[in-house]
């Protein structure tokens, strides 16, 4: 079903063209990404794999617009974002990207409901609308009964569900998750992956960056990085996901 859906879509959501990222530490040049060409289509569920030092975190930062590439192009829905100003990037992060972190990064002093509202606060959504949307999202991640709790009263899996609900709050173009199951046990990991599948079935585009090979089977498509280059996997979408290995 998912594959069928994906194959029907040809419009690009994200296009990275010949993307380079080099860090400069004093006189030393450290090239991290070395000419990446990657595309994501709407409704895809993509996994980006790579070991430590492969450049996957840098790629995640650029995809999440927390960092800008040294060279190359980054298009998001035909917007050229690689040369945007900081304030424009912040607006795009807020409206078009849903961030999910390995350690959830919930605000411990806010209730679950208030945590879900945070991106909407920065998106100037009026309070009543925010409350309504937070309740909907709480229900969607099956934690509607815990909206008034604080993150410290929740389990790890529940926290990650809330983080996902928060990421969805501004109806982003895609969800970007950084090792979302890294801090969870196997059973809970499975539940979270299932939630991602459900969301993907409902039409969300999801990109997950991880080093966990156990997750590989879950994705429509995987991209493997090594030393700043794509070692294998499918950087662009063909009719259906395929695995080179």
């Amino acid at each position, binding site marked *: 079903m998912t594959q069928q859906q994906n194959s029907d879509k040809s419009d690009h959501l994200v296009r990275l063209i010949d993307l380079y990222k080099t860090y400069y530490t004093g006189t030393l040049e450290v090239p991290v990404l070395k000419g990446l060409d990657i595309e994501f289509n709407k409704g895809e569920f993509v996994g980006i794999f790579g070991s430590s030092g492969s450049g996957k*975190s840098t790629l995640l*930062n650029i995809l*999440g617009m*927390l*960092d800008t590439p040294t060279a190359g192009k980054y298009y998001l829905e035909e917007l050229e974002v690689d040369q945007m100003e*900081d*304030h424009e990037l*912040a*607006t795009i*992060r*807020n*409206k078009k990207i849903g*961030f999910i*972190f390995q*350690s959830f*990064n919930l*605000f411990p*002093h806010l209730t679950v409901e208030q945590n879900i509202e*945070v*991106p909407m*606060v*920065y*998106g*100037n959504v*009026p*309070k009543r609308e925010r409350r309504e949307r937070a309740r909907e999202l709480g229900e969607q991640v099956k934690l509607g009964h815990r909206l008034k709790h604080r993150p410290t009263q929740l389990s790890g899996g529940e926290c990650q569900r809330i983080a996902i609900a*928060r990421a969805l709050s*501004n109806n982003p173009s895609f969800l970007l998750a950084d090792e979302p199951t890294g801090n969870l046990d196997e059973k809970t990991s499975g539940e979270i992956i299932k939630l991602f599948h459900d969301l993907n079935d409902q039409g969300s585009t999801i990109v997950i960056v991880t080093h966990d090979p156990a997750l590989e089977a879950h994705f429509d498509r995987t991209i493997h990085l090594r030393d700043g280059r794509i070692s294998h996997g499918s950087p662009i979408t063909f009719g259906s996901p395929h695995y080179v290995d």
Partner: protein
Amino acid sequence: MLTRDLFGLSFHNLLLHKVRSTLTSLGVIFGVGSVIAMLSISEGAKQKALAQIEAMGIDKIIVYSKKPPIAGKDSGQDNSSMTESFGLEKKDLIHIGKMDNIDRITAMRDGRKKILKGLQRLDLKLVGVDRSFLIDSVSDMGKGRWLAPADFKNRRKVCVIGKNVKRKFFSLGERRVIGRFIRIEGDIFRIVGIVDNNLGTQYPELGSPNDMIFIPMSTSMALFGNYAFTREGRSVKILNIEYDLMIVKVMELEHIDNTSKRISAYLQTSHSKVKDWGILVPLDLLKQRERTQNIFTIVMSSIAGISLVVGGIGIMNIMLANVYERRKEIGTRRALGAQKSDILLQFLIETVFLTTLGGLIGIGVGIGISQVITYYADMPTVYLWWSIVLSMVISSLVGVVFGTYPAWKAAQQNPIEVLRAE
């Protein structure tokens, strides 16, 4: 980010760390407290001093006799003489009375009598006065009447007593004092009224009208003449003083400076031998006092202001530590779409909240301190509305000045670094 959300968030963050927030704003609390207390104390002192000066009357010039500095035993003059003459004389009174811009002159002469209650000597003065003294000394009649024209004309032995005289002379229970007699060195005077000077007037060399027994000048002249006997050690001296005090009322206040200069110039020439007179212009004194008081106020509030600066630096320090501690929060907020300006304003508003709340508490502390001082040290304190408004404004400003750098620092945090640090 909506303004309401921004304020709500900042306030919420402060409430999260109540103890830390309170400790952080202690500097501002005590800074503002000391500014308020200093200003209210110095304003109280100022108003008290000014009221005393004003009580002499700002349209008056006070001319008085004073004992000249001792001529010196080497000079040999007057030393052997039993009689010592000095001070203001009748001719001075007449001459000054003829000058321009003089409305009238009220003269006063101290009888230099020993006033005894039983064997105890009381610190009171028997003085001969003109009829206009009551008005010119800005005093009121407490009870009875003031000296009447007939008292002067007939040199009657009547007196009006100051309110302290009644208290010192008669026991508490005695209500009816008017009509009773008072005996001073063999002369008996009938009391006709009680004077009440509640402005706290103090005349040079003579003191407060409340400590005086007033008799008509004509009676004084008839009974004692210009002479008074004093005992210094074993020798008895005869003092020859015509007038002890003149209250000169001017017609036009704006020319009071010139008039007082002219009086001084005249007295300098007519009393060229020794300086046995003094002149005092309450208006000048008032201005001078105001000037010194203002300087005092500025110095005091500057010292208190320094503590505000110190408090501000303390707040900046803690806010910087706060920014470091909350890197993860900042990074997450930035990743979720917070603009740099949202972060900057969040931290800035937190600091301004802290200092403004500190300022509010400080005002309470300041008022408390000055109340305690008024109560225990018996010093008057006056709160000035502008000092309270100013303290509020300054404490908010301290927040802006010392909160900007930490807030800027927070906004400059690189979200990648911040998230990686976790």
